[in-house]
């Protein structure tokens, strides 16, 4: 198997699994219980939250643990009542919520990066939040959050001068970037940051929302008052322990992995034939998005699957219920470019030999498809 879809899911790392194991067994206690062994679990849980928070330059008390990034994104929006701007290339979990708040989309430039002029024009006095992912999930495009934060600061000063009290928060979904960028909430200037364990070799169904003191949230679920009352329900102790371990490993391997992926990207781009590179710049190091003009990417995916190579596409395929990628459309690709697009994302399951092998197999199959089309 050559797995090249790490942006979709990552396997749980051995060390992560090992760290989690005791919490399914001897350390099963409810952290809210009164006896000492439960208190120990509670302490370990808080410590783990601290490790996750520290990974993005925050404190344990700044985090609300959620069941994944979608919930964290939904929770972030409870900070506002109305007036939201979001990047048009955002993940569906942001777009759908933003729509409920009458959200307005901010354009991206053809390179996938936010159009800051469009942003400036759209920040009217009613806007309470701006949601821009740190790195896009289809292209890997990294957004200049610090620049956006600087613009927000200016707007806030201007609003204060004019006596306008409306809040203006910056939310960012960092799910895709946790193990590929050095993330610090203060440097990014975000008020709300969505984190996800499942994309960084942690367990699925575990996420977190960083919440600054400027943001005031309302709970989506009520009950026992866990997570500062923002997310009731018995804590997912093994999940959070696993997330912390995954965060630790992500930090440790960050620089080494980035170098490795940059090199693999070069190899792949040199060895692939008859393609157009889509994510030319400003991308996470492990993303390669290419388009094979005139080919149907979904056919390629099924043909690759037969050879044990797993990749993704932004094409209108069954997996997306026949809908074309809104991201590829937003950066101005035409229908044929979108139809022939593959998203290849490297990760820790790969080695260099696999990259050579994948390039060879993809070349063979694109040639076979072209031969079939030309009869």
């Amino acid at each position, binding site marked *: 198997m050559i797995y090249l879809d790490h942006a979709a899911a990552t396997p749980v790392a051995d060390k992560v699994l090992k760290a989690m194991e005791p919490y399914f067994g001897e350390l099963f206690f409810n952290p809210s219980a009164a006896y000492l062994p439960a208190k120990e679990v509670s302490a370990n849980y808080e410590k783990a939250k601290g490790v996750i928070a520290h990974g993005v330059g925050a404190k344990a008390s700044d985090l609300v643990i959620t069941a994944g990034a979608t919930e964290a994104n939904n929770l972030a929006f409870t900070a506002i009542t109305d007036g939201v701007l979001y990047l048009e290339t955002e993940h569906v979990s942001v777009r759908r919520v933003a729509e409920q708040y009458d959200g307005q989309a901010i354009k991206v430039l053809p390179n996938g990066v936010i159009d800051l002029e469009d942003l400036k024009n759209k920040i009217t006095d009613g806007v309470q939040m701006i949601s821009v992912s740190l790195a896009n999930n289809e292209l890997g495009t990294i957004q200049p959050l610090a620049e956006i934060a600087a613009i927000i600061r200016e707007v806030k000063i201007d609003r204060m001068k004019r006596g306008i009290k409306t809040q203006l928060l910056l939310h960012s979904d960092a799910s895709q970037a946790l193990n590929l960028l050095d993330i610090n909430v203060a440097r990014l200037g975000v008020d709300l940051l969505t984190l996800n364990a499942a994309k960084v070799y942690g367990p699925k169904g575990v996420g977190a929302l960083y919440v600054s003191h400027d943001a005031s949230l309302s709970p989506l679920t009520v009950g026992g008052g866990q997570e500062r009352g923002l997310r009731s329900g018995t804590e997912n102790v093994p999940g959070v322990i696993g997330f912390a371990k995954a965060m630790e490993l992500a930090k440790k391997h960050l620089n080494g992995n980035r170098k490795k992926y940059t090199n693999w990207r070069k190899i792949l781009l040199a060895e692939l034939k008859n393609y157009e590179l889509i994510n030319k710049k400003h991308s996470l190091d492990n993303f390669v998005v290419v388009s094979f003009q005139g080919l149907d990417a979904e*056919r390629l995916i*099924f043909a690759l699957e*037969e050879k044990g190579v797993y990749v993704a596409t932004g094409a209108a395929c*069954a997996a997306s*219920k026949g809908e074309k990628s809104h991201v590829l459309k937003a950066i101005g690709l035409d229908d044929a470019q979108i139809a022939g697009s593959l998203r290849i994302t490297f990760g820790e399951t790969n080695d260099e030999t696999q990259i050579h092998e994948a390039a060879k197999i993809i070349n063979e199959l694109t040639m076979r498809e072209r031969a079939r089309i030309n009869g």
Partner: protein
Amino acid sequence: MAKTVYVGMSGGVDSSVSALILKEQGYNVVGVYMKNWSEDLPGMKCPWAEDLADAKRVAVKLGIDFKVWDFEDSYREKVVEYMLEEFRKGNTPNPDIMCNQEIKFKLFYEKAMEEGADFIATGHYARILVEDNSRSAPRREVCSESSSACLMRAVDENKDQTYFLYRISEEALRHTLFPIGEMMKPEVKKMAEEHGLHNAYKKESMGVCFVGEVGMKDFLKKYVEAEPGEIREIETEKVLGYHEGAVFYTIGQRHGLYIAAEVPYYVVKKDIAKNIVYVSKNLNNEELWTKELKLKELLLRSGPRPAGPSPRAAGANSRAAALRNAPNRSKSPFDISVRLRHRAPLIPTILDGNTLRFEHEVKRPASGQSAVLYDGEICLGGGVIA
């Protein structure tokens, strides 16, 4: 030059193997997924996207072209609207029969022919007998426009789908191939497995064909307005309970009745105008049984029987006669047989004008269901129970 066949591929094993067989026989095969319905109902996910992916995956494996044809608007109009209208009238229609008549063997057939296909094919268990070829012949190479074609039951009696196909036009039949009509289902599965088709053991879809695992009642509730009403015992007119709408009930039904009773009750009659469902605990209630059935929308492929000159004199039917395996039936006037439900046993019958007559009483099928007529293995056509 190789003939071109457009194969309707649903993502299931039967149509996948059909495509495989045609490819092995040297046809130029084009796979087509017909997108007929894609709406999710609350809490029920429509499986179309997964089915499409399964079909396309097989097409890629076979190295054949693959298309998706969107028939959603026509399907809604010709099949779903028809079905809902029939239910509103108190009938129990069969959407599969309508789908074959209006979509698969009409729109799909016409579009394939327009694109230059010589044949269409589907994964139905059925056979076609063509006059100028002695075989039912999935390998058919010629088909003159003047030749007659008739529908025959599948070799696998257990899977035979002619009940759903009796209304398709003879013109479409002449240009149709049923590659697995001579195979047994286990052979089909085995062949899929041997060729590494991933859907060899895919679960067959149940429930309403176009909405996946949904019961008809759940589907109808969304589209048909209904008022609660009384359930009465037919013999006594006594109110035994209440129902959610008479249209949701079918004659013969025994489940889903909100009646507290120790013995099962059967729906025997519906009064749609008064919104009353009549039940009985007596399985011998006369409403449940009949010796004759009136048909409407009668469609007979080999000319009306038994009126007029004996159709057996014609070429196709003399061959059909030769294929008939029931010997010495001429003594009985009940010389053809009828199927009142898919996979129901064949019952000897006489067609007298628009009326089917039986020697013994049969359980009365719901109005709107089809009665499909057979002469031996030949499917003669049929009609809708009035």
